[in-house]
């Protein structure tokens, strides 16, 4: 049994046993608990108008197909319920339930999930240890990508936006989704703050067993693969910057490539000058593949320039771009341009956003499902109105 297998077993055990224990610990009033149980949360209601145009052409075969699609959607995009308790001066427990897309078990849509359940041991601000289920630190936005009252966006930068996974099912490849053990902290030197994080997690979700018929319990990792990742960052009064990385394996067994070693490299930078803030991120996903003719590599970037017009009004514009060497039609990339306005009178955040996504001359290679290669052009305009309510 090697160290890799031991770590994988330990993480698997933590995944199955620690989260329920944390839930029990936080709900039962433990003797000596420093603070009462805090219960709070938020929800976001969305109103979307979507106008999508797609075309698929092959000049050699004289093929030209065009599709237009419009829809108007109202929904409760997300509702989160948080439970927090300071168990002692050193220990804090945290549970996060998430409900998405008008969840209804009766109608079979939306989802209800335990997103986080962790306990944190505070030794010093330079050394904190978290165990349980958590969202790992990777770039600035990963931890808060689903915290809608914190974000001015209705539609988030591409890889952070769950509601357009129909366009980009490879989104999850860009970000480590969850970890089970994390060490992190903060060092202060003069006006600068340096932060770090190191974490361990399971293999990616595609390796998790979701078939209750097989002997391995549903939800268990079926591999000895481990996610290892970390981040270092620096912050001054006006600038925040960070570098993130992770290593795990990409499940490409269905297309005969096996479990492919995957590196994620991320960087983030935020600069504030007066009323203006520029936030940006870059993520590069690299694969160690034995087939030189194939590439699974991916790139994502976004930049948002925002202006705090007053204490309550925020105006912003964003550019976001995603490229995937392998995924059909994404070889030349998809770009998104956002413009939005957010108004925060109190515990309600009102949001208005326009978003335009486009693919110009993307390629769909010939395959069993698509007998001839196609050139894709795609354009989607979205008008979105939303409000986030904290409670």
């Amino acid at each position, binding site marked *: 049994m090697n160290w890799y297998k031991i770590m994988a077993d330990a993480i698997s055990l933590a995944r199955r046993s620690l989260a329920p224990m944390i839930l029990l610990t936080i709900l039962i009033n433990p003797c000596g608990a*420093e603070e009462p149980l*805090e219960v*709070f949360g*938020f929800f976001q209601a969305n109103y979307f108008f979507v106008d999508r145009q797609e075309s698929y052409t092959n000049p050699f075969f004289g093929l030209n197909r065009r599709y237009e699609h419009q829809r108007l959607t109202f929904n409760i995009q997300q509702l989160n319920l*948080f439970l*927090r308790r*300071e168990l002692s*001066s*050193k220990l*804090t427990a*945290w549970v*996060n339930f998430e409900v998405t897309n008008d969840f209804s078990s009766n109608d079979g849509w939306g989802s209800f999930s335990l997103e*986080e359940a*962790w306990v*944190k041991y*505070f030794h010093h*601000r330079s050394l904190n240890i978290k165990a349980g289920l958590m969202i790992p630190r990777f770039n600035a936005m990963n*931890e*808060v990508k689903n*915290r809608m*009252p*914190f974000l001015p966006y209705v539609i988030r930068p591409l890889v952070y936006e769950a509601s357009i996974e129909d366009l980009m099912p490879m989104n999850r490849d860009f970000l480590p989704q969850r970890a089970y053990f994390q060490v992190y902290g*903060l060092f*202060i030197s003069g006006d600068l*703050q340096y932060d770090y994080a190191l974490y361990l997690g399971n293999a990616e979700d595609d390796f998790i067993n979701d078939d209750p018929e097989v002997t391995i319990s549903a939800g268990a990792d079926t591999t000895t693969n481990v996610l290892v990742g970390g981040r270092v960052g620096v912050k001054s*009064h006006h600038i925040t910057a960070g570098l993130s990385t992770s290593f795990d394996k990409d499940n490409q067994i269905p297309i005969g490539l096996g479990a492919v070693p995957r590196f994620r490299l991320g960087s983030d930078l935020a600069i*504030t000058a007066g009323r203006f803030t520029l936030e940006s991120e870059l993520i590069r996903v690299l694969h160690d593949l034995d087939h030189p003719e194939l590439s699974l590599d991916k790139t994502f970037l976004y930049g948002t320039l925002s202006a*705090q017009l007053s*204490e*309550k009004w*925020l105006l912003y514009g964003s550019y976001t771009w995603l490229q995937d060497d392998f995924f059909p039609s994404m070889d030349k990339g998809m770009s998104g341009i956002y413009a939005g306005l957010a108004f*925060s009178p109190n515990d309600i955040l009102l949001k208005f956003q326009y978003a335009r996504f486009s693919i110009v001359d993307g390629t769909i290679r010939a395959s069993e499902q698509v007998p001839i290669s196609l050139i894709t052009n795609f354009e989607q305009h979205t008008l979105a109105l939303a409000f986030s309510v904290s409670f």
Partner: protein
Amino acid sequence: MRLFFTGLAICLSFMMKEPQSEKIAIIAHAGLAVDSVDADFITKAYTLTFQRWEDGSKITVFNYKDDTDIKTRFYAYIDQKPAALRKVWLRYQLTGEGRPPRAVKNEKAMLDKVAETEGAIGYVALERVTEDVKIITIVEP
């Protein structure tokens, strides 16, 4: 004429309020082992970078619910914009890493809460400070 101006001056001196102290006192729980802190510490406590005193006990931060003159001057002292500060607090709160300052209605409530909460800090006008709390910094106007 001289009598008129003298009378006017006397009337005005009665009509004018006694000048208020513009100094702000950063106050803490009376039992706190720390006797003084600098502006950098106060800023880091209110931005939740520091959530513990040096001895490991918890810092409980109090702030005013409504926008008041003293709140505006305090934010200027810690060099923070209200919107930016709210965003910092929200990030800590929504990730489970900390809780925003507890809100109080007025200076009386601030004094009461700081006096009764171990490890607490807050701020009031210097002239309102009572013996139930300790002053750890005085902010000059």
